């Protein structure tokens, strides 16, 4: 599409200074594809107008927050317009007494978290790269971090949203109460839909009281078997850690002398934290763990540990990043199974497990030619164990013969039917979702 011609049409729905022609297009690359134009609407109405225009013209449009999750997805079938939502950064309604926050999709998570922390409240979304990630992006990707164990993911925290549809209509779905069953729960449908069903312009979240105290506990294990035996004890107990991550020993600065580290987030009153620390220490001792230590969250070292487990999938340099999901008790066997890849010399691995969620991140360095094979092997492996795998990062050329979401299942025709109705012209992130929807 000729950018000049597009510009003329876009100027009818957006004021000219809101349309950026060429220079920023390289910053909005998706899988090596560049848009012809970057558009930056000023409000939800303009987003709607823009989508209606794209529907009429058949232009492929990909919504952008800050781009932290844009590696996830198949190669766009068509990509004409990058839709920059950065201008939608309004705090619409911070209702502290009711523990809800409504904000524009373009707000960064960090800014919102600082806002609510001022009133000793918590917006418990901690996906990778949270200081840049936008609220809309996190919700569209259902991105999550370690504290999902206690608070759930966007799916559990988001109460409502405003969405611009492909036909140009802007609708409100859900509301600001935890309980709301008025009509179909469209909110859940848009969460995790990766910009393929509509464009999220505003989100209402549930907030939580800031716990009186937050601490980190580090436990060093010599063998993966010990670590997973410990995890099983924790999950079988009445204890309620906020997060429970396992990483390889070498990734923790100044503490590389053990094989694995368990990184556990604890929060609550001092009594609750000390009780959990005591019980967890006893469980660690029962599997001959070597080191047990405690760090306050606000200390620099505590912050370093938080960032390490939270950001690893985003900052890790490997060309292949896979997020595997299995039933929670299978994470230990999955951890040993993937290590065969390393043992067989196929790849060098960096692993991050969230056993309470049934999640394992695998970051692999390997010969480029091997990457797709490793990726599809992992998808089958997770499938055999009752789960699935999403390829978060892989060089674009490998995506041509690989669906990064895995093979569509028996629910696939329903997804097609939904997509066909919400986006009949097929303009919203075309080709990027499962089955190249």
């Amino acid at each position, binding site marked *: 599409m000729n950018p000049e011609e597009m510009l003329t049409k876009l100027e009818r729905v957006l004021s000219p200074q809101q349309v950026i022609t060429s220079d920023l297009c390289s910053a909005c690359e998706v899988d090596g594809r560049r848009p012809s134009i970057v558009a930056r609407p000023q409000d939800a109405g303009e987003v709607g107008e823009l989508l209606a225009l794209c529907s009429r013209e058949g232009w492929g449009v990909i919504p952008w927050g800050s781009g932290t999750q844009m590696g996830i997805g198949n190669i766009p079938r068509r990509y004409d317009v990058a839709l920059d939502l950065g201008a939608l950064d309004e705090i619409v309604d911070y*209702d502290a*007494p*009711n*523990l809800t926050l409504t904000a524009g999709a373009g707000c960064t998570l960090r800014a919102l978290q600082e806002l609510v922390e001022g009133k000793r409240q918590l917006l418990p979304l901690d996906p990778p790269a949270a200081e840049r990630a936008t609220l809309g992006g996190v919700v569209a990707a259902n991105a999550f971090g370690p504290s999902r164990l206690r608070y759930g*993911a966007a*799916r*559990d925290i988001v109460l409502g949203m405003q969405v611009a*549809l492909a036909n140009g*209509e802007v*609708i409100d779905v859900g509301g*600001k*109460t*935890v*309980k*709301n*069953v*008025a*009509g*179909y*729960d*469209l*909110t*859940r*449908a848009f*969460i*995790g*839909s990766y910009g393929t069903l509509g464009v999220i312009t505003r989100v209402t979240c549930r907030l939580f*009281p*800031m716990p*009186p105290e937050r601490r980190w506990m580090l436990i060093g294990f010599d063998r993966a078997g010990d670590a997973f035996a410990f995890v099983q004890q924790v999950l079988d107990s*009445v*204890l*309620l850690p906020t997060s429970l991550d396992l990483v390889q020993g070498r990734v923790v600065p100044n503490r590389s002398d053990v094989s694995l580290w368990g990184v556990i987030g604890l929060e609550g*009153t001092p*009594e*609750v934290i*000390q*009780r*959990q620390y005591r019980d967890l220490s006893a469980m660690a001792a029962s599997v001959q763990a070597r080191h047990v230590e405690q760090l306050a969250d606000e200390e620099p070292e505590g912050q370093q540990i938080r960032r390490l487990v939270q950001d690893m999938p985003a900052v890790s340099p490997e060309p292949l990043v896979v997020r595997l*999901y299995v*039933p929670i*008790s*299978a994470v230990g066997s999955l951890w040993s199974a993937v290590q065969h890849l390393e043992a067989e010399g196929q790849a060098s691995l960096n692993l991050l497990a969230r056993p309470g969620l*049934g*999640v394992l991140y695998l970051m692999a360095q390997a010969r480029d030619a091997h990457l797709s094979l490793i990726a599809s092997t992992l998808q089958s492996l997770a499938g055999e164990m*009752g*789960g*699935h795998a*999403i390829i978060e990062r892989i060089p674009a050329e490998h995506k041509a013969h690989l669906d990064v*979401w*895995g093979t*569509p299942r*028996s*629910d696939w025709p*329903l*997804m097609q*039917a*939904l997509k066909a*109705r*919400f986006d009949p012209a097929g303009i919203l992130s075309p080709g990027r979702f499962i089955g190249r929807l």
Partner: protein
Amino acid sequence: MPAGSSAMIDESILHALREIVGPEHVLTDPEDLLLYAYDASIHSGRPDVVVFPESTEQVSRIMALAHAHRIPVIPRGGGTNLSGGSVASQGGIVLTLSRMTKVREIDIPNQRAVVEAGLYNLALQEILAPYGYLYAPDPASQKVSTLGGNVAENAGGPHCLKYGVTTNHVLGLEVVLYDGRVIQLGGKAFDTPGYDLVGLLVGSEGTLGVVTAVTVRLLHVPEAIKTMLAIFDDLDGASQAVSDIIAAGIVPATLEMMDQLMMRAVEEATHAGYPTDAEAVLIIELDGLKDGMEEIAEQIVEICRRNRARAVQVARSAEERDKLWAGRRGAFGATGRIKPAYLVNDGTVPRTALPQVLRQVREIGQRYGLPIGNVFHAGDGNLHPLILFDPREEGILELVERAGAEIMRICVEAGGTITGEHGIGLEKIHGMPLIASPAAIQAMRWVKEAFDPIDLLNPGKVLPQTSVGVPS
């Protein structure tokens, strides 16, 4: 009932249904059909036939038959629906899942259970208890409401304040589609790739598919529980205490409120020990680790006192706790001692709007001359005003419905919604335009079309057929 619906079901269809489920599991006698014409709402609609399949395969065959002959199907669990969602308003087949009660799997290491849709909520809790686990959503009807029905309504219950609603605890569904196809959505692992169809099915009131089995998340039974009863001489003090407890950073497991009218009814029925001269009580429950719980309980007592609580009692034994809860759970039924029927609204408002909305509800009751009792989930702003009436009084139903519509409207005006957990069904269908724009309703209709393009499943529910006006 629309004319002609019975004509759809002739002897050959009945024969085919008897072939599928066995003749003893097909009801066609007028008296039997009448029994299945009701749910727990004030609506009714007589089905042409009631069938009781015992397996997913039978459900699939029934749906295929209904599809071939274009016969409406109304899925039904325990029949406890409070919004008319399970009555056959257009006739057709009532498909009752009460025989599908198998526990397919209790998977403790993975903290999941897979159970069939007809299992009662309480039956699941009883199965899980010996393992030290529970399923968090616990609607007041749990003794007689089914898991499938809970999924269809996205049921809540007192413990939602801390643990969330059904959708937060359901990970997978087995669903029979309108044409008989059987599909699996989600599973034991989180985040199945693609659209969150489980999230769409939960709360869809039987209009998108027939849920035949459910995979749920299990939680540990908490180590410690503390249940308190705070007694207030004025309603405002009680509602303010609710807001203050939350503002203090405390998230109790439950925060339930009951007003004087309800307490009187409950006391007559169950002798739970509620003070019938008080204006309101709060049932406050803490759960979690025992460490530090005493201090939090003291903090709550202090907040209640500051809001002019007359007394705060702490349940000293499991028996005392059960007694307090038995009164709460039996509250709807107990109103029968005052009037034979009720219409219960379940509008939900931001917590801080409670004092004002409760005053408005009282005013509406006075204006219409209708007694209204309140027993509700105050912690999450989920009201349950029960408008009590005697249906034998002439013209009363219209009055009751008008009062109900006004209550819906004030909830929306207070920043809330028209239903928190009972669903739209038939009863609130005219209220939908209050909270959803025509474009939003259209988007919901796209969902319906994607799942059930010929409107076979529970037709006439949830979505207004055209953009109807709101009754004033």
